[in-house]
C-alpha cells in the first residue's frame, strides 16, 4: 500500500451551521452501492427466521382478498365493475400494501436508524430510497401472482383484457412511490419531535384505504362523498393502475391532474423537511 494521494485543491466537504450538508444529489449518487446493498439487506432480512419465508408474498394478498371478497362483495354487495371480485380486490390490495408499506417504513427512518446515524455519516436520504426500492422488489412477485390469477380466469373463459395500456403501469407506480416517499419523509421529519406520530400514521393509512377505490370503483362511491375521492391522489392512482391492467375503469383527467400536482407538492415539501430534520436530529432524538 502506498501513501494516499490526493488532489486537495478544494475541500472534500465543509462543515458549517445552517448549510444543507446532507443528501446532495451528487452525494446520493456517490452512495448508490450502499443503496443497492440496503435494498438487498432489507429484502433478505425480512424473511430470515420466518416459517414461510418468501411465501408470504403470495399468501398475504390471497388471505386479505378472500376476506374482502366475503365482506364487501358477498355481504355488502359492492360492485367490482366487470372484474371478478377476487381479481378486483387482489389488484387493489397489493398496490395499496405497496404504498402503505412505503409510507410507514419511510416514516420510521429516523427512529429506527438513529444509532447508525449518530455514528456514521452518509446521505440520510439513502435510507428512504432504499425502503422504496425494497418495496418495489416485494411488489413484483405479488404482481406476478396477480397475473397467474388473471391467467386462471382467462383459462376458464371469463376473459380479462390485458392490453398495451400496461405500459402506463410503471408510471403510475412511480407516482405512487413518489407520493409515498414525500409523505413518509414528511412524517419522518415530524417524528424527530413527536415520536408517537407513527402510530397515528398506521391508523390513518388503514382509513385512507377505504377512500382510495381499493374496495370499490368510483362509480360505487355515493355522490355526496365523491369530492373526497376526487381530492384523494391515491384514488386516482389506484383507478389509473387498474385501468392500465384491465381497462375496465377509466381514469378521469381532472382528478388525475390534481393527484399529480398534490404528489409533486408533497414530495418537494417532504424531502425539504427531511433534509431540515437530518441536520438537527442527532441533537434531539
Amino acid at each position, binding site marked *: 500500500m502506498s501513501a494516499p494521494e*490526493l488532489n486537495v485543491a478544494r475541500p472534500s*466537504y465543509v*462543515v458549517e451551521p445552517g448549510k444543507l450538508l446532507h443528501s446532495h444529489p451528487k452525494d446520493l449518487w456517490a*452512495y448508490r452501492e450502499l443503496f443497492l446493498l440496503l435494498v438487498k439487506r432489507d429484502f433478505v432480512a425480512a424473511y430470515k427466521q420466518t416459517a414461510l419465508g418468501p411465501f408470504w408474498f403470495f399468501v398475504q394478498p390471497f388471505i386479505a382478498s378472500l376476506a374482502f371478497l366475503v365482506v364487501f362483495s358477498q355481504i355488502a354487495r359492492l360492485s367490482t365493475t366487470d372484474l371478478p371480485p377476487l381479481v378486483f380486490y387482489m389488484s387493489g390490495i397489493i398496490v395499496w400494501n405497496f404504498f402503505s408499506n412505503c409510507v410507514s417504513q419511510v416514516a420510521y427512518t429516523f427512529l429506527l436508524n438513529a444509532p*447508525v446515524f449518530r455514528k456514521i455519516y452518509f446521505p440520510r436520504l439513502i435510507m428512504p430510497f432504499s425502503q422504496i426500492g425494497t418495496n418495489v422488489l416485494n411488489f413484483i412477485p405479488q404482481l406476478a401472482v396477480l397475473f397467474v390469477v388473471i391467467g386462471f380466469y382467462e383459462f376458464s373463459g371469463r376473459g380479462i383484457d390485458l392490453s398495451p395500456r400496461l405500459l402506463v403501469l410503471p408510471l403510475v407506480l412511480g407516482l405512487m412511490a413518489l407520493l409515498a416517499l414525500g409523505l413518509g419523509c414528511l412524517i419522518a421529519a415530524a417524528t424527530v419531535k413527536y415520536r408517537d406520530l407513527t402510530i397515528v400514521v398506521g391508523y390513518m393509512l388503514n382509513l385512507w384505504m377505504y377512500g382510495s377505490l381499493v374496495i370499490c370503483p368510483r362509480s360505487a362511491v355515493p355522490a355526496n362523498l365523491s369530492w373526497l375521492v376526487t381530492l384523494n391522489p391515491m384514488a386516482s392512482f389506484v383507478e389509473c393502475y387498474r385501468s392500465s391492467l384491465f381497462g375496465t375503469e377509466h381514469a378521469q383527467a381532472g382528478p388525475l391532474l390534481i393527484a399529480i400536482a398534490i404528489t409533486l407538492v408533497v414530495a418537494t415539501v417532504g424531502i425539504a423537511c427531511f433534509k431540515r430534520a437530518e*441536520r438537527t436530529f442527532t441533537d*434531539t432524538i
Partner: protein
Amino acid sequence: MRVAIEAHHISKRFFLGERNQQTFFEDVWSSTVTGVQRLLQPRRLSLVENSRRGFWALRDVSFQLYQGQTLALIGENGAGKSTLLKILSRITQPTTGKAKVFGRLASLLEVGAGFHPEFSGRDNIYLNGTMLGFSKKEIRQKFDEIVDFSGIERFIDVPVKNYSSGMYIRLAFSVAANLSPEIVILDEVIAVGDAAFKKKCFERMDTLIKQGHTAILVNHETANVRRMSQFCLWLRHGQVKMFGPTSEVVPQYEQETSAGPEDAQRTPELAQTT
C-alpha cells in the same frame, strides 16, 4: 505540506432537555403563552430567550492539521472531545464556526455501527464499507486483508449475531482500519479486544501513520498519546486549553491532572460510584 483539516472557531451549543421533551399539546400551550407574552411585553421576551438554558459543549475551537500528522484529543470527560469528532465527521452541525476537510474521512466513533445482525461477516464488511464511503471494488480489493486482520476467517459466512463480542469488534475495527481512508478518526475504540488484538491495532495505526495518513485520536492514556501522535489538542470545558506538539502539551496535562484541584475533588466521587 498540505492541509487535511482546518477548523475555524467551532462552537456547539446543546439545549438541555428543553426542546423535544414535550407532547404536542404542551408545545401548543407553551408557544401560545410565549406568543401572548410577546404581544404584551415585546421587550421582556428577548430576555427570556437569551436566558434559555443553552450548554456550550464547544467554544471557539480552532486548529489546523496537515496531511500525515496525527492529532490526539485530550481532556477530561465532558470536555467536548466527542462532540468535536462528531462535527468533523458530519454527524452533527456546529452552532457557529466552520471546518474544512480535505480528503476522505472515515470515523470510527463506535465499532460495528451499521452492522446488521442477520447478515454474515462477509455481507457486513461490504455494508459497513459502503456506509463509510468506499466502493464495492475498493472493498473487494482489501477484502482478504480485512478478514486476515480480524482473524475470523472461519466464521466469515456466519451471521454476526452469533459472533462473540470480541469477534464483532475485531471485524468492525479491521473494516475501517484496512480500507485506509485519507483521514481516520478514532474515538477510543483502539482500547478494545484482548491484549494481542490491541497490540495489532496499535501496530496498524502506526503503519497508517507511517504511510502518511492523517489521524485524529481520542485517548486517555498519555503513554499512547506520546507514542502515536505528534500533536495534541487539550480541551477543557469545551475550550482549547492548549494546542501544540505532544512533547509540550502532555507534560503540562499530566502535571495538572495528577495534582489539579479539580482532580482532587473528583477522585473520591469516582471511587464511590464505581
